[in-house]
């Protein structure tokens, strides 16, 4: 008989939050994932109560400087000489609300971010005493603040605004002259600092020092005149600087790329992925009226925590480029999808095995690659993709600069040595054996199949989104979609399958590649598939070994994806 498997019991502590008993783990992971005593702030979060905070960030060392998370608490009494803890008349344990030692009667708060809970503690997260402390901290934060919300980029996603509404007071008593500090400081090539808006929570300093390992920022001057700064003459410039804009709770750090572009409350937010490398950082696309304005990282602890690199973040301009391919072309000029698909299908139907080759891109989705592979199988076609390599870093950037090399490999469009079969395709074209080439998302003239070779082909079918030497030689040019304009999944370098959703409408004739391919595969092979992305994914998950082994379904991917074994 198999022994009953029991999960190791999680040691818990019971505390009261606003009068309700809550059982919480005794320890919780700190910013590095090491267990540390659960804090008041974490316990309240477990109880569904958010303690306002500025400097605290779950992925960074605790600083405790903003004082926004001050909470009034009561501690259980210490056991007396008889070893018994003090009790109330009804026998329940007696607790002692914390008060100033020198001014009994005046409540004393503890900072929720750094104060560990003890059994029997009572946390007054919403008491008048706690509210008064928050009001006081907010008043202090605002006295020297420029109150320039109308022209501040942070407006709408500013914690100072939010907490002022939730916890502040309508009036300031401040009757003096404000402190003035540097404004519109070029902190680095991508960031502008307004030191007057800064509330010195030091999140940016701690992030770049502790998470990135580039101790580039500090505080200069003293007291009320403190200001964030990089070393004079040394711009704040590493590949992760823009994360400081995300974690800055106020409008002190703004992104040069995004500032003054759009009020954030107009932005539609769409869950997406970064396509800059094989890491697949989870992102949110901010768009309005079919224009993308920014990427922000989306928390996924299995992939990118709360961060993304600057290169990836700014790698979106191409999506809205003016020269995006928007016209569907056939050999006789502009055409329509039904005609083009009919003609291509007709051509392919006559093609012999071995006469077709496919160059797919590892920037395409799993679903697209899966469909391309079906075509390839039908013609016993040579298929490959194009490697794209750079230097990996210590944090997020992968050496593989394609977002879906792993997917291409698992599906079988390419091998472990990406691009190794390209020379065989060249040979095939030279020998005249390969007469039809299907190219998806790559400029093959950059990879050994030059324009002259392309001229030897009977048929060149190209799908892409931006013009290049290959698209110019295409017999059929099928305008495709960027990831922001369609749905699909990528498999990252570690084997995590993640999905992204559609933020923008494709322009012109452009259609999601999977829809086109689905049609072609059906016409050519007779195989019927699912004509929804969910169904297609599930079919692929059933047919691709690694995906099947992991039991993937579209639904099970959730927002943060699922791992397959590599």
């Amino acid at each position, binding site marked *: 008989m198999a022994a009953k498997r029991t999960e190791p019991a999680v040691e818990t502590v019971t505390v009261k939050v606003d009068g309700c008993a809550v059982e919480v783990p005794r320890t919780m992971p700190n910013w590095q994932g090491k267990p540390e005593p659960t804090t008041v702030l974490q316990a309240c979060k477990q109880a569904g109560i958010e303690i306002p905070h500025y400097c605290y960030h779950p992925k960074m060392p605790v600083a405790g400087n903003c004082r926004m998370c001050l909470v009034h608490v009561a501690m259980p009494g210490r056991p007396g000489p008889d070893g018994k803890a003090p009790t109330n008349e009804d026998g329940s344990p007696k607790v002692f609300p914390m008060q100033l030692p020198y001014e009994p009667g005046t409540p004393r708060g503890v900072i929720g971010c750094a104060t560990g809970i003890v059994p029997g503690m009572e946390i007054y997260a919403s008491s008048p005493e706690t509210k008064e402390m928050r009001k006081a901290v907010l008043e202090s934060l605002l006295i020297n603040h420029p109150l320039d919300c109308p022209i501040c980029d942070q407006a709408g996603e500013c914690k100072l605004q939010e907490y002022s509404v939730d916890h502040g007071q309508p009036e300031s008593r401040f009757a*003096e002259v404000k*402190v003035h500090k540097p404004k519109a400081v070029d902190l680095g090539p991508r960031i502008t600092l307004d030191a007057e808006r800064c509330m*010195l929570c030091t999140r940016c300093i701690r992030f770049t020092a502790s998470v990135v390992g580039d101790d580039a920022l500090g505080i200069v001057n003293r*007291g009320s005149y403190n200001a964030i700064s990089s070393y004079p003459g040394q711009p704040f410039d590493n590949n992760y600087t823009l994360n400081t804009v995300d974690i800055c709770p106020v409008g002190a750090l703004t992104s040069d790329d995004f500032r003054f572009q759009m009020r954030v409350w107009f932005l539609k937010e769409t869950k997406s992925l970064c396509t800059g490398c094989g890491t697949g950082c989870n992102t949110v696309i901010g768009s309005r009226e079919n224009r993308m304005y920014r990427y922000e990282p989306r928390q996924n602890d299995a992939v990118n925590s709360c961060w993304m690199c600057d290169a990836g973040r700014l790698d979106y301009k191409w999506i809205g480029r003016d020269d995006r391919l928007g016209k569907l072309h056939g050999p006789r000029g502009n055409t329509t999808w039904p005609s083009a698909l009919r003609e291509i299908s007709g051509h392919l139907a006559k093609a012999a095995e071995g006469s077709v080759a496919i160059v797919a891109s590892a920037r395409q989705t799993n679903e697209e690659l899966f469909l391309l592979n079906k075509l390839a199988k039908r013609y016993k076609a040579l298929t490959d993709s194009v490697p794209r390599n750079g230097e990996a870093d210590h944090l997020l950037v992968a050496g593989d600069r394609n977002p879906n090399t792993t997917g291409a490999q698992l599906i079988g469009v390419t091998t472990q040595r990406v691009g190794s079969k390209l020379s065989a395709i060249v040979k095939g074209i030279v020998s005249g054996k390969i007469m039809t080439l299907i190219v998806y998302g790559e400029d093959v003239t950059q990879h050994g199949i030059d324009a002259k070779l392309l001229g030897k082909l009977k048929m060149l079918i190209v799908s892409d989104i931006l013009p290049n030497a290959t698209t110019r030689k295409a017999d059929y040019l099928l305008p495709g979609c960027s990831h922001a304009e369609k749905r699909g999944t990528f498999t990252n370098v570690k084997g995590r399958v993640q999905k992204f959703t559609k933020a923008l409408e494709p322009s012109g004739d452009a259609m999601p590649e999977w829809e086109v391919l689905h049609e072609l595969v059906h016409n050519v092979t007779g195989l019927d598939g699912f004509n929804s992305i969910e169904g297609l994914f599930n079919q692929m998950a059933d047919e691709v070994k690694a995906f099947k082994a992991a039991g993937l379904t579209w639904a099970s991917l959730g927002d943060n994806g699922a791992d397959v074994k590599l």
Partner: protein
Amino acid sequence: MPKETKLVLKHADEAGYTNDIGCYLKHGGYRTLKKAFRLKPKKVKGAVVTPQEAIRREVLASGLRGRGGAGFSCGMKWNFVNRKSGKPIYLICNADESEPGTFKDRQIIYKDPHQLIEGMILSCYANDVKLAYIYIRGEFPEGAKILNHAINEAKANGFLGKGICGTKYNLEIHVHRGAGAYICGEETGLIESLEGKRPYPRIKPPYFPAALGLYMCPTIVNNVETLCNVRNVLAMGGNAYAALGTPNNTGTRIVSLSGNVKRPGYYEIEVGKATLGELIFHKNFGHGLHDGRKLQAIIPGGSSSKVFRAGEKFDIKSKDKRGEVVEQKLDLLDIPYDFDTLMKCGSMSGSSAIIVLDDSVDIIEVLGNLSDFYAHESCGQCTPCREGSLWMAKALKRMRSGQARKGDAGYLRHIAHNIQGRTVCAFGEACSWPVLSFVDKFRDDFEQRGAEDETRLAKRGAEATTR
């Protein structure tokens, strides 16, 4: 008759007493140290008591309380030290004397540095410390030189370095200079400064120096005078030391007296054996106010302590010898100068620095001066103090420049209340207590100033419109 009892300053001001080791040795210096290094493990009630443990017990028995400001039991502080962490234990002498009104450590450092060194070596030995620092304020450049010289002399005489007094015990002491920051007097700010960082005090919990101090190792931070007294405790025995002063307020203490008195200076007294009135008026001490002046206020324990107004009376409770609670009425000038009574009267002895204010001074000017100090010295790490300390100073500057408002007393009180108890370190109290106490006790002065200024400004405004 109240008089000085000199223990720490026994020789400092004697004619011919110099700060070199020869003079110190001639006056019995390092005798206590040599005695301590001859101590052998002893069996007490079946358990072995190490010499280190014996010294610590002696210090605990002496009732010695920290002379820096908080007045916490030195022996208890030592007992809190985590001795099982496997990490080295550090000791730091806090010689960052900078509480306005205080100038006692300066006397020791400049005139009798070896007493401090001896006290430090004993304290280090008792706590298995192998490396210690003296954090001396930057404005004592000469003091740093004197201490370095004393350290070298002590080394040359075998009291410091390797194999002290022929034992296997090694100890190094280094002098570390500050550069002008009151906040470095806060022990965790001091530790950060010593680590080469901005002296931002650490949050407690979790960073209690006894467990996570210098380089995240257990650390003891003691004041100069406290460390000297460790030597005196061991020289005379804990119980004998405890017999000095008053119960729970043992030993002697150097009082710094300044402000409007005839004879400002430093006076070492048995704790609680002289009253505030005696310290100010008695001929052995301050010798009274300048002729024709009346007492207006007393700042009893350094500028951070809450002010007393002349004529204040206090109802305090204390326990008599049988442990029964007795109520006592006390006039301001009759407060015995100790730790506990001053606390019961709503202030503190702090760094034992009395600043006397006579009726010639403008209370708002005085508070403004102090608030300027705190605004300048706030490190700016945490919100309430960073914003509030300058806010108070600015408000007072406005009031000092003829633009006070009737409501300013409440205004100031509100700002101060937003700070106290809500900051990372005790600087929050240090900067808000003077404001709270001055406003509460001299409310009439503030309101009158406000009324005068408002009337005058209104009149001027009316004249301007009619013209």
